[in-house]
């Protein structure tokens, strides 16, 4: 049934219904959304939180300290740098 301009719901409601009906009619999409949620949870709540801290952000509190640390790495790294070799 076609809505007349007067009876046409507010655009926000129409967008909401569009998404609601779309999600309701999904078949394989439901499984995919579950996989996405599990994956995002593992990535952000487990891996990022426990295993992938931002090294410079956690070790230093200001950008000046971070810059000083990196400069120190750059100036001291030249003393005997070698490339990794096979098997190491």
């Amino acid at each position: 049934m076609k809505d007349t301009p007067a009876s046409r719901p507010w655009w926000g409601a129409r967008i909401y219904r569009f998404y609601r009906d779309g999600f309701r009619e999904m078949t394989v999409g439901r499984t995919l959304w579950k996989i996405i949620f599990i994956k995002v949870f593992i990535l952000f709540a487990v891996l990022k939180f426990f295993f992938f801290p931002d090294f410079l952000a956690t070790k230093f509190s200001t950008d000046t300290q971070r810059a000083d640390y990196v400069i120190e790495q750059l100036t001291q790294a030249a003393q005997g740098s070698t490339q990794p070799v096979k098997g190491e």
Partner: protein
Amino acid sequence: MIENLDLGMVNWARAQFALTAMYHWLFVPLTLGITWIIAFFHTIYVKTGSEEWKRLTKFWMKLFGINFAIGVATGIIMEFEFGTNWSNYSWMVGDIFGAPLAIEGIFAFFLEATFFAVMFFGWNRVSKGFHLFSTWMVAVGSNLSAVWILVANAWMQYPVGQAFNPDTARFEMQNFAEVAFSPYAVNKFTHATSSSMLMAAFFIISISSWYLLRGRHILMAKRSIVVAACVGLLASVFTIFNGDESAYEVAQVQPMKLAAFEGLYEGQKNAGLVALGWINPEKKVYDTQEPFIGFNLHIPGLLSLMANRSFGSFVPGMKDLVYGNAEHNILGAVQKMERGKKAVVSLDAYKQAKKAGDSAAADVHLAAFNTNKEFLGYGYLGKPEEAVPPVAMSFNAFHVMVILGSLFPLIFFGYLYFSYKGSLLEKKWLLGLGTITYILGMIASQAGWIVAEVGRQPWSIQDLLPVTVARTNLTAGTVQTTFFMFLGLFTLLLIAEICIMVKQVNIGPEEN
């Protein structure tokens, strides 16, 4: 500090990045390419009003959705790795990558995300015109997402439009247009997107060929093949042309990479391109071993043509690039290391002078640094031979990519020719080959990234920052743990994708 540097960590961090990047790239090309082909299918449906084309469009859209869902957020892992394993690098390039990646986030992602829902949910809910527009916008948005990450990658290979700030230890952007439209970036984008279109064409051909061999969904499979083969033929020819352009660009800005992927140790005029040959993996740049094992065949002058657009021109070999070649005015890694070490010493002296409040001395050291800064990265090499990337891996990956890439247009042409003749169903050999074309395309595509990334070693930023300095000072054990966690996670996700995809392919398109 470098004396405590765990080289095992660098290798594990490299391996982990390679694993995540290659896994991410299993999904990306299909997303980039198939959105265009789906847009063509959708356009034909809107033009003809045929329910068969609608069914076909919805079917490929569903497979695209599966690929997108499993692949989504796999790229974010690389950002985690930057902050944890490659913190020096991450800090140093923040100013350059911040702008392109922010643009990607704001513009392309929202464009893609907004129209994505309309594309999937819009059947009979929005006008046909707006629905079709949304499908095209998903294709545009997906490919725009790729622009900025490829610009960032291109910048690492050809770091233009920047200046190193010794106070902040950051490469700062001086010219956005130079970064965004560098010829290296343009070639990388066109090569990646056109090869993705041919990959998507192969995806459709593989599944459609399987249907034809099984005698199922014959009309849909034939129609899908014709459109996919047209797109694939154009894309594969274009990929060869812009691949050649990329090789020219590599020869200009990364001659060592070109020499490695052609196994060229001694520079030559009228240098030949290897058509057939088995690279000697034991050969070192300083020894006298033969570069190839047994028989090898070179096409005379073709490498010179590819590198300099002139048959007779000189192409430097790895020896020239390591030890220098005065006759051809080539600075070797030996000479660059001297200047690089001066740059590092000046940087250190500048830092000390600043700390002591001696601005006059700081200015002198800064001027000395600026004289040699273009070779900064060479200051971290222990010996000049370290400037050579893994030759055998670069060579093999390059030749696998080229051989397969040359075969692809023939396959697409074969499909179009026999479709036109009406005898495609009888050509079981072609349909059999067709079912594995997606795997062949994936091998070529992954090989292309191996060429690009292994071939540029030891640099994380060409000539400016080697991987050994780009890393975080962690132990190998830390990275090993997450490497195996990713391996497990990725394997599970891949199994999930394959199972869901196979199930949907078995079900086939919805009946009317």
